[in-house]
């Protein structure tokens, strides 16, 4: 069937990660003739979501293929529960009615029950949030791609303060409702937040002209904020560390505050069924406008030549077929080494962990969707971003939560993240029905990911390299790689009343 594949395209996109998919959609939208391929049998590459079965396959694949371990390494999976459920547990069948809220007794999960419900899991390789007024939300709306996806609002932002979890007041209502800060502090905090959002460019320049080489923490101290408030603003709202430069802190705060009040109580949205849905939505748009899709299609060889007047001709060998195009857009992990510029780029690998637990890290009336930002617990650590998603997001069966941990790598994923996990989970295994303060960790996965998020140039004209996932909280880096100005841009997309215009920039 593959042999019907046409061979001549204006643009061929290889890899279905976020950046590649945005480019594919943009090119197709302006009626370029696009072929979009992926060597694997599913969409998303390192941005994919997997059900539990798919995840097991992914783990096996990585562990048996040294080539894959260039991107993903130190991958280790661990169970904290029995293989099979105890017999008596079958009583559960009684409350099979769909909206039974009567589940008094906690379900005892086993590895077998995970396997039975494998379809209900959607576990992300690159979990990310969207800022409600961030560039991705605007792009989804302006391109109509929003209709292909559903979102949930993050219901709360937490931080780790004085050895316990604390909700971070982020909206005006929150600030006034919280009991964690005094009235004087409330006024101080409101004043601070309001002024940061309110500054126009000139006021910004005035206010911060002497702060360029100083830290955000110093600025907050200078403003007379109490240690509690500094903690909220610096770690939870700006997501920074003590070393965060002042202007970066201000920028991050502003981004957070500007996104408040559009869709919910926090600035964030989470895609239903996981972040891995989003690249697929861009692919759908590409297909709707005529893009040809072909998974399971590895490439063997890429050759480039210049025909007259700077016109490129790129040929790709794939499964005994030769494909031709003017522009090749390729994910960095799929790109033949000889096409990449050897110029070194700054990089810091990512430490990641996924946990499945039997309860939320902090009790709540309604099912919560939580962002927790851990300040560094030890000298030399980075901040740790934690996302907890539940059954209402389509991430897991009822009664469970999926919790993601992401940080910049220091040693290895397990060493970097386990101390943080132990603060909020009970990782001892043991009786799941036992009433404990912390939720039980039932399963864990640690891994390190090579950082491929920096833009890399290609040495061949007409070849455009897309970056891989970064450790950031949102998709902004991926979106800005496509929709921004030089030099970061890969190609330039503009939308106006007549549709889109795209210029593929030569990568130099």
């Amino acid at each position, binding site marked *: 069937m593959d042999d019907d594949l046409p061979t001549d395209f204006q643009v061929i996109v290889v890899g279905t990660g976020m950046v590649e998919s945005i480019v594919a959609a943009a090119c197709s939208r302006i009626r370029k003739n696009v072929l979009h391929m992926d060597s694997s049998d599913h969409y998303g590459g390192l941005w994919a979501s997997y059900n539990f079965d798919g995840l097991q396959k992914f783990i096996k694949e990585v562990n048996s293929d040294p080539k894959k371990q260039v991107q993903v390494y130190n991958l280790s999976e661990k169970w904290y529960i029995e293989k099979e459920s105890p017999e008596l547990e079958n009583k559960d069948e009684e409350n099979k009615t769909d909206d039974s809220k009567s589940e008094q007794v906690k379900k005892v999960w086993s590895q077998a029950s995970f396997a039975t419900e494998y379809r209900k899991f959607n576990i992300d390789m690159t979990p990310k949030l969207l800022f409600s007024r961030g560039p991705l939300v605007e792009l989804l709306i302006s391109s109509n791609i*929003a209709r292909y996806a559903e979102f949930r609002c993050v219901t709360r932002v937490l931080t780790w303060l004085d050895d316990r979890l604390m909700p971070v007041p982020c909206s005006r209502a929150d600030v006034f409702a919280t009991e964690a800060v005094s009235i004087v502090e409330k006024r101080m905090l409101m004043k601070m937040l309001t002024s940061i959002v309110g500054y126009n460019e000139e006021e910004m320049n005035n206010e911060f002209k002497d702060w360029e080489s100083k830290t955000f923490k110093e600025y907050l101290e200078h403003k007379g904020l109490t240690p509690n408030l500094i903690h909220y603003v610096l770690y939870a709202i700006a997501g920074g560390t003590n070393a965060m430069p002042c202007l970066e802190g201000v920028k991050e705060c502003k981004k957070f505050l500007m996104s408040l009040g559009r869709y919910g109580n926090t600035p964030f949205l989470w895609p239903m069924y996981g972040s891995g849905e989003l690249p697929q939505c861009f692919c759908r748009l590409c297909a709707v406008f005529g893009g040809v899709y072909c998974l399971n299609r590895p490439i063997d060889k890429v050759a480039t030549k210049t025909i007259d007047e700077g016109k490129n001709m790129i040929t790709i060998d794939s499964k005994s077929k030769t494909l031709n195009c003017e522009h090749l857009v390729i994910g960095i992990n799929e790109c033949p080494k000889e096409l990449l510029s050897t110029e070194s780029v700054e990089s810091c690998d990512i430490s990641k962990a996924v946990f499945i637990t039997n309860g939320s890290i902090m009790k709540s009336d309604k099912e919560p969707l939580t962002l927790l930002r851990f300040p560094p617990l030890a000298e030399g650590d980075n901040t740790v971003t934690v996302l907890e998603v539940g059954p*209402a997001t389509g991430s897991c069966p009822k009664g469970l939560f999926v919790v993601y941990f992401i940080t910049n790598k220091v040693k290895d994923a397990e060493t970097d993240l386990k101390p943080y996990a132990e603060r909020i989970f009970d990782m001892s295994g043991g009786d799941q029905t036992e009433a404990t303060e912390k939720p039980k960790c039932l399963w864990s996965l640690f891994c390190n990911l090579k950082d491929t998020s920096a833009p890399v140039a290609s040495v061949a004209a007409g070849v455009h390299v897309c970056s891989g996932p970064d450790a950031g909280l949102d998709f902004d880096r991926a979106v800005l790689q496509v929709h921004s100005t030089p030099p970061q841009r890969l190609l330039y997309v503009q939308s106006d009343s007549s549709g889109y215009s795209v210029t593929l920039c030569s990568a130099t």
Partner: protein
Amino acid sequence: MPDMEDYKFLFKVVLVGNAGVGKTCLVRRFTQGLFPPGQGATIGVDFMIKTVEVDGEKVKLQIWDTAGQERFRSITQSYYRSAHALILVYDISCQPTFDCLPDWLREIEEYANNKVLRILVGNKTDREDREIPRHIGEDFAQRHGMYFLETSAKEAENVERLFMEIAVELMEQAKCKELPKYDGSLGPINGKTTSVGDGSCCLRS
């Protein structure tokens, strides 16, 4: 909110099946009353909408096409999400399109909601070179718990009936609350969306 139209229910119906079995023609025939002959791959069609009346109530059917991604078996999983009904189509004059049904079912089982209403459709009954007898299709549908219908988009045979039966059945399910739920408390059933609140939301400009 711009989309507060006059309808009581909104259902998402998706079509799957091999390339060339007539998925787009079925949709076009139903929504526009057209049969475009010699149509190539589907371009620019995202979904089509038709509002029908069941028991005096307006029901809006949003019918999604594969956008050609079925050609090399590369349909996105997200296509199957939040579908209320799924129409699996084969061509009664083309054995290979019938032989692929188990593959399609596997994909449906993997990604679609397990409560989704599933209908098997043998299209192109106008053709004289039938390869799959009606009872074979019927058997297959029965074995896999699907409704079954043979249609001809060209002759407009059973096309109206196909979608009307889907509308009736989905409405029945909606009334007994057996419909797949996608939003917890905020079902897509009434077509309303919230822009503020901690439930789910749709992005609106």
